[in-house]
C-alpha cells in the first residue's frame, strides 16, 4: 500500500502560514469534514511575525473568496484598503514631474489587440497608461475602484488591497480554525525528526510533544526551520541583481481622521533606493528600501525623515534586513517552503503575498495522493516556483535598468550589464523592435506579471519600441475604437466612483453585499 497523504502540517503562523492553511483547507473541505484529511498549523507562542508586505495583488480577492471569507469582515478587521496599482515617482529622470502608473487593469481590449504600437506611433500626448486604461486618472482623483452597491469581491476597476499584516494573520487564524477545520497547535519546535530516506517524520515540540505529519509546509520565515536547517537546502542570493538589502519602516498617523487617502501605492525613488507610501484607513505605512552598499543607515534615516517631514519626527523607525534571493529547491522530500522561508525580494511590486497564494494554490490543487507520487508533484512545484521567482527578479530589475538617473552610484551601478540577468537583457533587445504582448514568452498559466505589466513599466519609463506605421494600418480602426472606448470609460468612472476614503467609511458602517 502506498503511504497516503492525510495530514499536512504547516509550521509557522504568519501571513504565509495561515494563508497556506486556509487555501489548502478550503480546497479539501470534503475530506476534512469526513475526517480523512487534516490540516494542522504549528505556531510558536514566542516568535513574533515579521508583518511586512502591506501590498497585495488582485489574486488575493479570489483567494479570500474561495476560503469563504467575507470581504466586509476582511476590510473591518485587517485595516484594509483598496489598491489600484502603483505610482512610480522619480524613477526615470529623478525630476519633480517624473512619474508613471503601473495600474492593475489590463489595457483596453488587451486580449484582442495590442495598443502599444499604436500609442508608440501616435500617442496624442498621453502617457501610455492614460492612453490604454482609466486607472491613472482614478488614482489621481483619489477614487475607490467600486461603489457601495458593488457586491463583495466584484470590481468596477480591478483592485488589490493594502492591509495591516499584523492584523491579517490573526484574522485568517480565526477563520481557518473556526470555519475551515484547521487545527492550531501553539508549540515551539525543538527538533525535526527525519526518516532514513530524509523525509520529515515528525517535529518534537516543547509544549505538545511529537507531532507527526505526511506533508510539511515550512512557513517559518527567515528562520527556514525545516527547508533550511533540517533539510539543508541552500539559499540562492541575488543581491548582485537587486541591490536593496535593508528597509527602514515607519507608521504615521493622518492629520485628520477623514484626510484623503490614496488608492494606490506611491513608490518614490531616492538616491540609494526607494520609499514606499501606503494608505491604510487608520494610518500610513512608509518605508525606505535601500542598499547598504550605497548608503549608510544614518543617511537613509535622514532621507526617510525628509520624506515624512517635520511633523512626525519622533516616530519609531523599525529596521528590517532584506536578503534578496530564494531557495535552490522549494520542495524537498516531503517538505515545501512557502513565504519568507522560500525567499524574499524587495517589496517593489508586492510580490510576497501573491507568491504565497500561488504556491499554496499549487499545493492545494496538486496535493499528492500518496508518498509515491509526491516527488513528481514536487518536481513540478519546483519548476514552476523557480520560474516565478526568476520572472519576478527580472521584472523588479526592469524598474532599475530603464532609469536615466546618474545622480548617484546606486543608479549608475544598476544599469551595469553585469548586474542584469541574461534573459532580461535579451528581452530588452527584442523589445526594441516588438512590444511585449500575448504571444510573448509570458505564456505560463498564472504568470505573476503578465505582458501588460511589462508594457506599463517599459513605456511608463520612456522605453521606445520601433514601430513601422505600415504595420499598424491593419488594426488602425479597431485601435481607434478602443482608444475612444477608454476615453469614455474614464469619463464615466470618474463621474461615478466615490472617493476612496468615503467608500471605506461606508464599508465599515454598512458593509458590502455578498451579491
Amino acid at each position, binding site marked *: 500500500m502506498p503511504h497516503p497523504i492525510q495530514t499536512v502540517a504547516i509550521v509557522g503562523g504568519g501571513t504565509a502560514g495561515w494563508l497556506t492553511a486556509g487555501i489548502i483547507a478550503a480546497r479539501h473541505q470534503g475530506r476534512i469534514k469526513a475526517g480523512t484529511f487534516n490540516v494542522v498549523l504549528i505556531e510558536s507562542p514566542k516568535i513574533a511575525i515579521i508583518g511586512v508586505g502591506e501590498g497585495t495583488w488582485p489574486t488575493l480577492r479570489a483567494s479570500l473568496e474561495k476560503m469563504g471569507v467575507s470581504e466586509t469582515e476582511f476590510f473591518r478587521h485587517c485595516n484594509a484598503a483598496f489598491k489600484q496599482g502603483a505610482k512610480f515617482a522619480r524613477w526615470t529622470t529623478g525630476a519633480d514631474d517624473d512619474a508613471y502608473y503601473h495600474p492593475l487593469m489590463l489595457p483596453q481590449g488587451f486580449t484582442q489587440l495590442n495598443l502599444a504600437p499604436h500609442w508608440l506611433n501616435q500617442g496624442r500626448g498621453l502617457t501610455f497608461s492614460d492612453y490604454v486604461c482609466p486607472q491613472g486618472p482614478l488614482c489621481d482623483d483619489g477614487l475607490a475602484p467600486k*461603489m*457601495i*452597491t*458593488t457586491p463583495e469581491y466584484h470590481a468596477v476597476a480591478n483592485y488589490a488591497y493594502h492591509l495591516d499584516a499584523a492584523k491579517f494573520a490573526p484574522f485568517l487564524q480565526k477563520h481557518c480554525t473556526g470555519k475551515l477545520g484547521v487545527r492550531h497547535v501553539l508549540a515551539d519546535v525543538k527538533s525535526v525528526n527525519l526518516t532514513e530516506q530524509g523525509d520529515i517524520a515528525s517535529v518534537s515540540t516543547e509544549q505538545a510533544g511529537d507531532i507527526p505529519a505526511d506533508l510539511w509546509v515550512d512557513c517559518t520565515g527567515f528562520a527556514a526551520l525545516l527547508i533550511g536547517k533540517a533539510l539543508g537546502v541552500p539559499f540562492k542570493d541575488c543581491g548582485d541583481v537587486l541591490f536593496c538589502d535593508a528597509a527602514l519602516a515607519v507608521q504615521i498617523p493622518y492629520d485628520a481622521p477623514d484626510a484623503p487617502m490614496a488608492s494606490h501605492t506611491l513608490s518614490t525613488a531616492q538616491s540609494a533606493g526607494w520609499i514606499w507610501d501606503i494608505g491604510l484607513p487608520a494610518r500610513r505605512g512608509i518605508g525606505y528600501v535601500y542598499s547598504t552598499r550605497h548608503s549608510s543607515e544614518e543617511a537613509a534615516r535622514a532621507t526617510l525623515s525628509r520624506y515624512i517631514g517635520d511633523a512626525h519626527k519622533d516616530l519609531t523607525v523599525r529596521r528590517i534586513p532584506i536578503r534578496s534571493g530564494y531557495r535552490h529547491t522549494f520542495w524537498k522530500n516531503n517538505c515545501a517552503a512557502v513565504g519568507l522561508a522560500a525567499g524574499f525580494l524587495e517589496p517593489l511590486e508586492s510580490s510576497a503575498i501573491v507568491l504565497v497564494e500561488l504556491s499554496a494554490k499549487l499545493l492545494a490543487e496538486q496535493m499528492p495522493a500518496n508518498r509515491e507520487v509526491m516527488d513528481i508533484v514536487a518536481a513540478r512545484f519546483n519548476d514552476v516556483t523557480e520560474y516565478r521567482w526568476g520572472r519576478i527578479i527580472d521584472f523588479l530589475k526592469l524598474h532599475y535598468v530603464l532609469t536615466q538617473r546618474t545622480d548617484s552610484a546606486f543608479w549608475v551601478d544598476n544599469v551595469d550589464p553585469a548586474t542584469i540577468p541574461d534573459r532580461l537583457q535579451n528581452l530588452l533587445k527584442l523589445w526594441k523592435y516588438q512590444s511585449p504582448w500575448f504571444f510573448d514568452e509570458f505564456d505560463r498559466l498564472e504568470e505573476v506579471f503578465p505582458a501588460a505589466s511589462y508594457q506599463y513599466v517599459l513605456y511608463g519609463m520612456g522605453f521606445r519600441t520601433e514601430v513601422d506605421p505600415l504595420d499598424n494600418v491593419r488594426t488602425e480602426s479597431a485601435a481607434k475604437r478602443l482608444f475612444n472606448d477608454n476615453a469614455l470609460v474614464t469619463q464615466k468612472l470618474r463621474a461615478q466612483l466615490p472617493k476612496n476614503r468615503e467608500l471605506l467609511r*461606508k464599508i465599515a*458602517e*454598512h*458593509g*458590502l*453585499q*455578498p*451579491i
Partner: protein
Amino acid sequence: MTRVVVLDSRAHRELRIQARAAAELGDDQRFVPVVVGEFPLLVVHYPVLLSKDADTGAFYCGAMLGFDPGENLFLGEDGHDAYRPLNLQRGPFYTAGSDLAIDLDNPRVGAGMGEALFDHAGAPTPYLQSIMALMRDLQPGLARTKVFLQTLLELKIVEPMTIDAVFDDGTRREVTDLYTIDKDAFRALPDTAVVELFRRGYLQLIYLLIASLKQVPVLAQRKNRRFLHGSGGGSAASLL
C-alpha cells in the same frame, strides 16, 4: 432640499397638504420602496423587486412603476390608477422617534390648497389621522421587511436580474440593479429551511415576489399604450 421638523399643532395649524397624486408633487418615481405588508396589494399591479440603496448598498424592496427615470406609468389626470404604495401616500411626512415629522420644503406643503391637518380646536383632522395610521403600518413594516430580506440573503436565494424591454416605438430599455428570488436556489432549500420560511410567513411573500414578475410585460404594455395614445410618451414623441 429638505427641512424636516416635528409636527406641531400650534405652529402648523394653518398648513395644507396637497395629498393628490401628481408628477409635480413627487409621484414621478420609477421605483418606490415598499414594505412586506403591502405585497398582496402591490403584486396585482406591479413587479415587486429588490434593489440596493445607492448610499448604503443595503437591499430594499420596491414596486416598479415605470422604465425610465421619473416615469410612473400609473399616473394620469385622475391621479394614481392603482393601489398607491404607502411611501407615495405618506407625502411630506416622516417619523421622528414616536413623533410625526413633516418636510416643510416638500412641494405638497403650503398654506392655500389641500387637506388641513388640524381643526379649529387643534385636533387632528381625519386626513392627519389617516397619515398617522399609515405611519403605524409603515414604520414597523420597514423593520419587518429588513428582517425578511436579511433572511433571503442568508439563505442565498436572491439573484441579480436585468429587465430588457423593447417597446412598440422600437426603443429599448435595460433596467439594471434589480434583484429577485433565485428560483433554483429556492427550490433546492432543505426542508427545515422551507418549514421555517412557512412558519414565519415568508413562503407566501416569496411566492408573491415570484408571481409579480409577470407584471413586467403588463407594465411594458402600459407603456406601449401611452405611445398609442400619444400621451406622456416622451421618447416616442421625440422619435416621431
